[in-house]
C-alpha cells in the first residue's frame, strides 16, 4: 500500500518532467496558461493536425526573465537546432527593443512570423466624461496630471507604450509627464478604472470582453488598421478618429539564427498553412484574436519598424539610455 502511494507521488512528479522527446520542440518562454503557452500549444497542435509537419511537436515551458531565459537558451545553446520553434509576441519585441534581455538583440534569432493578434484598446468606465479617443487625449494634453492610465504591463511595457504612441500621433511630446500605473494584469487594470482610481485603461481587447458585454466599460478606440470583424464591429479605430496608431499584441514564433534556409522556409510555410487553416480561425475566435498575417520577410520588416519606435519612446521615457 505504501509503495503504491509512493509510486503515485512519483508519477505525479514525473508528469511535468516527461516529454523531452526527440521530435521537434516548441518552447513557451512562460508557465502554462499564458499567451506564449497558448501560442505554442495551439500552433503546434494545428501544425500536426493539418499535416504541415509529420511528427507531433513537443511543448516545453521555460519561464523566467520575461522570456529572456528562453531567448538566451536559444541564442547560446541551440543556435543551429532546426527542430526548434519558440513562441513570441509584442512583449518579446518590446523587451528586445529595451535591452531587457541582458544585451541580446533581435538579430540573434530569426523571426518566423505572426498569424494572429490581440488588438490594443483604450478603455474608460461607463460613466467617464470622455466620449472619444480625441476627448481623452485632449484632456491629457491640457493637463497631464488629470488622467492616470492603468495597464497590465510594467511601466515602459507595451500597454504603456500604446498610450504614448497615440499621444505622439496627437502631437503631445512631453511623454514623461503621462501618468501610468502598471498593475497585475489587464483585469486588475479594469477594476481600478471602474473603481475610479484611474481614468482610463490600456490593454488588449481579450482582456476587456467580459466587462464590455456587462456594460461596465466603454472602449474608446481599437488600435488596428480596420475595425474588428464580428461582434465588436461598432468600436471605432483610432485611425478613424484621426490618430494614426496601430498597436496589436501579435502572436508568433521565432527560430534559432543559424538554421539552414530550407529549414527556415519549411517552418514559415508550416506557419502560413496554420494561419490560413479553419482550425486556427476557430482558435482565434475562441481566444479573442483578430487576423494578423505577416510571415517571413514581410514580418521582419514590420518588426524592425516596431522595435525602432519602441526604442525612441523608451529613451524619451528614460527606461533605456
Amino acid at each position: 500500500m505504501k509503495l503504491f502511494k509512493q509510486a503515485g507521488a512519483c508519477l505525479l512528479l514525473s508528469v511535468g518532467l516527461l516529454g523531452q522527446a526527440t521530435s521537434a520542440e516548441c518552447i513557451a518562454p512562460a508557465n502554462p496558461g499564458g499567451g506564449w503557452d497558448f501560442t505554442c500549444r495551439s500552433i503546434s497542435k494545428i501544425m500536426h493536425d493539418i499535416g504541415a509537419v509529420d511528427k507531433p511537436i513537443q511543448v516545453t515551458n521555460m519561464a523566467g526573465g520575461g522570456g529572456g531565459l528562453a531567448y538566451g537558451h536559444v541564442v547560446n545553446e541551440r543556435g543551429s537546432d532546426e527542430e526548434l520553434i519558440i513562441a513570441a509576441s509584442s512583449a518579446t519585441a518590446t523587451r528586445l527593443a529595451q535591452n531587457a534581455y541582458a544585451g541580446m538583440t533581435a538579430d540573434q534569432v530569426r523571426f518566423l512570423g505572426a498569424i494572429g493578434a490581440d488588438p490594443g484598446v483604450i478603455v474608460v468606465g461607463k460613466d467617464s466624461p470622455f466620449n472619444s479617443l480625441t476627448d481623452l487625449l485632449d484632456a491629457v494634453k491640457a493637463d497631464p496630471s488629470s488622467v492616470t492610465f492603468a495597464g497590465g504591463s510594467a511601466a515602459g511595457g507595451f500597454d504603456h507604450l500604446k498610450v504614448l504612441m497615440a499621444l505622439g500621433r496627437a502631437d503631445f511630446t512631453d511623454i514623461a509627464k503621462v501618468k501610468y500605473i502598471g498593475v497585475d494584469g489587464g483585469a486588475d487594470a479594469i477594476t481600478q478604472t471602474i473603481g475610479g482610481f484611474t481614468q482610463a485603461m490600456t490593454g488588449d481587447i481579450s482582456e476587456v470582453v467580459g466587462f464590455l458585454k456587462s456594460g461596465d466599460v466603454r472602449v474608446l478606440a481599437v488600435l488596428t488598421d480596420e475595425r474588428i470583424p464580428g461582434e465588436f464591429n461598432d468600436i471605432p479605430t483610432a485611425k478613424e478618429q484621426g490618430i494614426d496608431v496601430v498597436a496589436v499584441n501579435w502572436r508568433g514564433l521565432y527560430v534559432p539564427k543559424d538554421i539552414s534556409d530550407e529549414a527556415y522556409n519549411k517552418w514559415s510555410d508550416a506557419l502560413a498553412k496554420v494561419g490560413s487553416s479553419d482550425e486556427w480561425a476557430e482558435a482565434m475566435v475562441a481566444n479573442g484574436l483578430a487576423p494578423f498575417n505577416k510571415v517571413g520577410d514581410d514580418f521582419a520588416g514590420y518588426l524592425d519598424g516596431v522595435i525602432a519606435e519602441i526604442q525612441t519612446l523608451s529613451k524619451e521615457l528614460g527606461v533605456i539610455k
Partner: protein
Amino acid sequence: MEVFSLLADGFAVALTPYSLMLAVAGCIIGTMVGALPGLGPSNGVAILIPLAFSFGLDASQALVLMTSVYYGAMYGGRISSILLNIPGDEPALMTTLDGYPMAKQGRAADALVLSGVASFVGATFATIGLMLLAPILARIAFLFGPAEYFALYLLAFCTLGGMASNNQRKAALAACMGLGIAMIGLDNNSGLPRLTFDSLHLMDGIDFLVAIVGLFAVSEVFIFIESHGKNSAIGVKLGKITIPVKDIVRSFFAMIRASVVGFVAGVLPGAGASLGSFLAYMSEKSISKDKDTFGTGNPRGVAAPEAGNNAAAGGALVPMLTLGVPGSGTTAVLLALLMTLNITPGPLLFIERADLVWGLIATLFIANFVLLILNVPLVRIFVKLLSVPAWVLLPGVTMVSFVGIYSLSGSYFDLLLMIGFGVLGYFLRKIDVPTVPIILGILLGGHMEDNLRRAMVISGGEWTYLFSSPIAIGLWLAAFVGFIAPMFVSKFFKKPQAITD
C-alpha cells in the same frame, strides 16, 4: 429560492459518477501535493493541466478536477506544517507556529484533526459566501485602490512585530530581510531592474516557494546532518487518532471569526490566502485572553490560520470568477485554465455560464466533504507519506524539494538559490531569528511597495492621498489601535493587571 434550484442543477452536474470520481481523485492528489513541501498548489495545478487535456475532459469536468486539487492542497498544506515544521505550501506557513509545538507535546493527532475540522469550517463558510454573495462581493474590488491596498498591507506588517512573542526585534529584523528580498526584480513603476546584478534569472524576482523550501526544508536537512540525526525535530510520533471534542468546541468561534477574516482577505484581489491566514492568526491572537500561549501550541492558533486560509482560498474564487482577477498564484493558474477552456471570467459569467458556475459550487461542497473524510478519519494515510524514519524521509523531502523547485522554471539557478536559502535558514536558526517573518516580508512586501508607488503616481506625490477614503482611514486606524498603540501602551497597563492578579 432561485439559488437553491440553481444549486440543485449544479449538483446534478457534479454528482454524475464520472465527475464524482474526478472530485475524489482531485482531493487525494491535492492533499498529497499540499502535503509535500516544494510542491505548492499552484505548480500542482499547473502540472495537472496538460493531464486534464490529454484525458479529453470537458470544461465542467476539468474544473471539477482542478478545483478539487486546489481545495485539497489547501487542506494538505497543514500536514507537513504540523508534523515537520515545514509548510507544505505558502498559506500553511502560519500553521507551523502552533501546530508544530502542539505536535511536539505529543498532540500531533489532535492538531491534525482540529485543523482538518477548521479547514472544513473555513472552506464551507467560503463556499456558502461564494454561492450567495459572489456578484455583490465582486463590487468590493472596485472600492480598493492603491491607497486602500497599501493600508491593508500596512496593517499586516504592523502585526509582524508582535508575531514572535519571544523576541520582537529579531522578528522585525527578519521581516526587513524579507522586504529586501522582495525588492529584487523588475520594478513595476519604472520598468528598471533592481538588485538583479544583470542576471536574467533574477529579473522576475525570487519565487517565494524557493525561499520557503530553502528556509524550512533544506535548512532542516542541514540541522539533521549536523546532529547526526539525533536531535532532529523530525519524526513526531502520531498517536491514536481521536476527536479532540473539547478543543473543537472551544475554538469553534475562533474558526468562525477566522473564516470571516480569511474570506474577506480572499475576496480582495491581490491579497490572497497567505494574507488571509496571517490576518486570521494575528487577529485571533490579539483578541485572545491567553496571548502568551500562542506560539507554544495553542489549539486556537492551529484552528484560526487553517480556517482562515481555507476561507481565503474559497474567497479568492470570487474575484477570479466575477472579475477575472486572480487573488492568488493558484487562482491565476485556474484562470489560465478557464481561458484555455474558452470561458472568459467576468461580470457575466454567473449569468452566461450558470451551469458551469453552479456545477463548480456544487463540486466545492462535495470536495469539502470528501476532504473532511480524507483528512480526519483517514489522515493516517497521508501521515504515512511523511512518517517514515527521518533518514528516509529527509532525503525524500530533499528530492521532492529539488524536483518541485526545478519544475517551477526548469532552471538550475532556482536550485542554487534554494540551497542558498537553506544555508541562510540554518544560520538564522542557530542565532534564533524566526524565518516566518522573512517569508511574509517576501510575500507581502512587493505588493505593499507596488501599491504605495501606484498611489504616489496617481496623486502626483501627494501623501495625503493615502488617507483619502473612509476604507483607507479605517485600515490605518485598525493598524494603529490594534497593533502599534499596544506596544507603547502595554507598559502602562501591565502593572495594574499584575496587582489584580
